[in-house]
């Protein structure tokens, strides 16, 4: 074997365990889901094997599904915008701090050491009718009866922001770290105020990081299942909850498969658009 051929093979040898795992645990089950989505669930509860478009027709035309899909995308979009507005200043502060940068980054990672479910449930202790906030307001005499603050769209968004903010901060931080601080100094020396230097130089150069963080927040937010269950009301179901409902509660695997594939396609398109304009390299940077 020539040297070139051997060198060309080497990355594939190193990648094969990971590729094997991904193929076996992700691609193969996904293929099953695709096949399932064309089966039909009969009235007796048994699945009819075949090629039926009924599930897809229902998924794509039923107003109920469409509304929840749009609402899911709306909640993900609001969450992403809030994460960007809150995360950018934090990332900027960390990137520009000199001595305690590592401590700040560690603090940013700290929430990941606690289960996402526990973190989400902690809001019940804060906002619940017997939670910290209500107790405080009552002891201050501002209210006489506890207010129901939980189980609405706002608390779902709150929980998602709590979950996704570190992803935004990390991505923006990485892109800010890559910007030479002399650039702001140069802009200042040329007559730009600090704000002008920021909007003219730093912000445009950090947009790829902001976009990468935004994509992650949006995709993870739109696919969320736990947060609406814990912090949402009966009318705050998101799309992943429909999939759960169809598959686990109704045992309607064909319909659940079609629904989950629809969400996958919508979010996949978004990633494809991102990749077309910004490339996946930036996302890899932010995750590394």
């Amino acid at each position, binding site marked *: 074997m020539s040297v070139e051929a051997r060198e060309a093979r080497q990355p594939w040898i190193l990648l094969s365990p990971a590729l094997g795992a991904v193929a076996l645990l992700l691609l193969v089950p996904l293929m099953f889901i695709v096949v399932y989505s064309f089966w039909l669930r009969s009235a007796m509860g048994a699945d009819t094997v075949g090629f039926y478009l009924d599930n897809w027709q229902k998924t794509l035309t039923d107003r109920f599904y469409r509304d929840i899909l749009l609402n899911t995308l709306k909640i993900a979009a609001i969450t992403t915008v809030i994460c960007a507005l809150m995360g950018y200043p934090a990332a900027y502060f960390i990137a520009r701090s000199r001595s305690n940068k590592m401590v700040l980054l560690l603090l940013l990672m700290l929430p990941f050491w606690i289960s996402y479910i526990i973190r989400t449930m902690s809001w019940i202790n804060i906002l619940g009718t017997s939670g910290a906030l209500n107790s405080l307001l009552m002891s201050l005499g501002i209210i006489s009866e506890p207010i129901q603050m939980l189980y609405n769209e706002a608390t779902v968004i709150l929980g998602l922001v709590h979950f996704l903010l570190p992803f935004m901060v990390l991505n923006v931080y990485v892109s800010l770290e890559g910007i030479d601080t*002399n650039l702001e100094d140069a802009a200042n020396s*040329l*007559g730009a*105020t600090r704000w002008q230097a920021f909007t003219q130089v730093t912000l445009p150069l950090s947009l790829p990081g902001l976009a990468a963080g935004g994509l992650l927040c949006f995709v993870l937010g739109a696919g969320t299942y736990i947060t609406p269950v814990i912090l949402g009301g009966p009318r705050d179901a998101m799309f992943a909850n429909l999939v759960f409902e169809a598959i686990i509660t109704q045992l309607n695997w064909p319909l659940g498969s079609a629904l989950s594939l629809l969400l996958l396609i919508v979010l996949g398109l978004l990633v494809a658009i991102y990749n077309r304009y910004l490339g996946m390299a930036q996302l890899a940077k932010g995750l590394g």
Partner: protein
Amino acid sequence: MSAVTLKNIVKRFGTFTAVHRTTLEIPEGAFVTLLGPSGCGKTTNLRMIAGLLDPTEGEILIGGKRVNDVPIHKRNLGLVFQNYALFPHKTVAENVAFGLKYRNVTKSEIAAKVRDALDLVQLPHVGDRYPKELSGGQQQRIALARAIVIEPDVLLLDEPLSALDANLREDMRVELKRIQERIGVTTVFVTHDQSEALALSDLIVVMSEGRVEQVGKPEEVYNTPASEFVANFLGASNISEGRCIEHGATIVVEDAVFGRVTVPAAKAPNLTGTGKAKLVVRAEKLLLSKAPAPAGVISVPATVETVDYQGQAVRYFVRAGEVQLQAINMIDDHPFAAGEAVHLHLRPQDCAALPG
């Protein structure tokens, strides 16, 4: 009037003092170099003039006005960095035009000024390109154009040539001098490279460990170093402990190798009287020869130990008795070989003396 004045400037970072009490006058239109090894405080001084750092104590005046409380964007200074610091997302023309946007300049004037600036740095056709499409030397020219197009009161250059290749660096050095003379802007240049400092400067400020060691014209600091540090930092010198035995109409220093040397008074300005003194002999003033010395020239026998051949010049390490000396000689032909016995010729008027 001085373009820039540092008055009793002190800069501390926590417990570390980067700049000890320094007072410095930078004359209008002059090319002044802050020269010294890394960590000597030269860049700290430059950044304080720029407004990127605030002095802990003291005053900074630009054009006679105190600027301690004037933010950087109102100081009207041109700043050039070692790593160019061009805006990567803007074209060359947008980079050069950047500072003009914050001044009352019309669009057509901006275009004309950008064109003139690019002509001045001899890169008239790159306006539409992005910085990364240019070579390092070209990028540094653009950075210079961006700094001078705003007609700054002072041009501040922070090791602008250090990132360039050796050949390019020498070309840029000539170019920099040409442009500075052409526009006549007061320039403060920071470098650790003595040849850059000697070639470019009207005035050199030699710094060490946060203190100014000497301020003078290039030939002054080179020929009459005010301290052992300056003598060693600028070029190679042989410095030996000796005694000043006569300090009057003539100054005579007695040295272990060269005996009694009559040092010109101009070259021993800091020597106040007889007693301990140091004799400074520049490596290139020590001539190796087979022939005996002419009258008035000191001659000492020595043996060549190491030969460092550099083409047109050669650096010898020679031994005269117990002492090893360094000599840099221009040569036409073959250098002396290691082990050869030679005479060291030294003209007394080429020696300098420092207090011991």
